[in-house]
């Protein structure tokens, strides 16, 4: 099995596991970090260490990091929290059609509450320009939510150019940085983003833990979405999962240390894969290659049916879109937004590479894809090529 689905999730870095283990068992610091006794304080210390580690990767202060159960929750908290704090009446949000499902679904929910939402259509290359965003602003615009790196096509949005323009205009800016963290340099001291979502399991930390960066200066104010004992400065209640949080911290520290090396490794393999696949005629790379995150390559294959393509590659773990929505078997709405028709959107594969990926795996994967695409085209009664009539 060749795993090329690192954008869906990653395995735990073994070093991360070593940090997590002592926080779980009876002989370790398993206590509730909210408990006011010795073992509780020890657990709390692990949580605070991790907070500093997560903050460091993105250029934030530890006090600006709020723990969540993952980026789905971070995005929910950022968007609903900001809107409910401000009041939903007459409020307006600007986002894009290629955001993650959890952003879009949250916005759709807010629409039922009376919020007006503009879903910007990116260009054919997947880029939403800052100018498009500015044009969509109205005096009622409370929040712009845009992802840094698209999870399906890997396009890097111009959030760093957009951020100061929104700050000038007094509009809150939320960025889903799940696919950017650990892949691109992020420095929130220099980029005036107000709210930023990250997740551990995309960069070799555990699934089920994430964080929301909530800027302190100027302060981004949120209505809590998880009510309870007032943990996390009242923004997110619930027992803190020490091992998960410490694992996220360790993963973020490692990501910071390896950022440049990781990015180079990934981009090299991504380019190799694309080079190899190009022996196939009539394939299309999705997303602007000039604004590509290092770990994602999304390709549409003409003349093959999507489900058959995936089924013919059982030894290859790749995604046909966002893992979060691929269960639905619907053609990717991201590729549809880029103007691909249903058929082509369906016949697309997202290859996403990781630290464990080798050139050999990429070569094998490319060879398998080439072979199967050629075969399915051969099998097709409608593929028009220089096929020689006769038995296959």
């Amino acid at each position, binding site marked *: 099995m060749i795993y090329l689905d690192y954008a869906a999730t990653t395995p735990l870095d073994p070093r991360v596991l070593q940090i997590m283990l002592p926080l779980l068992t009876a002989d370790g610091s398993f206590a509730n970090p909210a408990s006011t006794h010795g073992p509780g304080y020890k657990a709390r210390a692990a949580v605070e260490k991790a907070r500093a580690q997560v903050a460091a990767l993105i250029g934030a202060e530890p006090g600006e990091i709020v723990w969540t159960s993952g980026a789905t929750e971070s995005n929910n908290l950022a968007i609903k929290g900001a809107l409910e704090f401000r009041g939903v009446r007459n409020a307006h949000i600007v986002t894009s059609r290629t955001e993650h499902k959890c952003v879009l679904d949250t916005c759709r929910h807010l629409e039922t509450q009376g919020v007006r939402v503009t879903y910007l259509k990116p260009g054919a290359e997947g880029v939403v320009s800052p100018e498009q965003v500015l044009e969509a602003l109205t005096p009622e615009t409370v929040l712009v939510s845009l992802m840094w790196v698209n999870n399906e096509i890997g396009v890097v949005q111009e959030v760093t150019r957009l951020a100061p323009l929104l700050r000038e205009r007094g509009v809150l800016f939320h960025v889903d940085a799940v696919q950017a963290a650990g892949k691109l340099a992020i420095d929130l001291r220099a980029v005036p983003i107000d709210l930023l979502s990250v997740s551990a399991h995309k960069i070799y930390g555990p699934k089920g833990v994430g964080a929301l960066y909530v800027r302190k200066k100027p302060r981004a104010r949120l209505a809590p979405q998880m009510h309870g004992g007032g943990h996390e400065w009242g923004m997110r209640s619930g027992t803190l999962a020490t091992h998960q949080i410490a694992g996220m911290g360790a993963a973020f520290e490692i990501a910071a240390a390896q950022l440049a090396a990781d990015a180079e490794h990934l981009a090299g393999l991504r380019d190799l894969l694309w080079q190899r696949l190009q022996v196939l005629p009539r394939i299309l790379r999705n997303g602007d290659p000039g604004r590509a995150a290092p770990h994602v390559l999304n390709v549409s294959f003409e003349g093959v*049916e999507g*489900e058959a393509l995936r089924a013919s590659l059982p030894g290859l773990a790749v995604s046909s879109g966002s893992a979060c929505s691929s269960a639905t078997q619907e053609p990717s709405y991201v590729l549809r937004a880029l103007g691909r028709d249903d058929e082509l959107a369906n016949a697309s594969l997202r290859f996403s590479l990781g630290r464990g990926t080798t050139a050999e795996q990429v070569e094998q994967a490319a060879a*398998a894809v080439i072979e199967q695409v050629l075969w399915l085209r051969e*099998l*097709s009664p*409608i593929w028009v090529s220089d096929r020689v009539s006769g038995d296959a």
Partner: protein
Amino acid sequence: MNQIETNPFGYAEPIWERFTHPRHVGEFPAGTPGVVTGEAGSKAARSVLRLQLRFEGGRVADVRFRAYGCPSSIAVGAWIVEWSLGKTPAELAALRAAELRQALEIADDRAHCALLGEDALRAALTGFAATS
């Protein structure tokens, strides 16, 4: 098709077997005598099935198919041509989608793949009636 050992997607075995090891893929050289062709489906519906049956002495002597579509529709094509061998037009005409579904263990949400097969075969038989 190259070796694919596992079926991680949980397709019914008869479908998986024929999807991964289809026989009789292709078409007869143009002008081969006794050949009728039937096609069904559309590119827009994301499945197209083309069957070719070569008759000799009133029975199917050889077969070919091509398919574009999901694994189930490819398996349907492979199954029908295999099953057709040696049969008379009357026997072929008796095939119903229900039988196809049973043979290939096609689930409800893929019933259209079996209908595709029935349609393609019927189209071929119409061709046969027209030529004979």
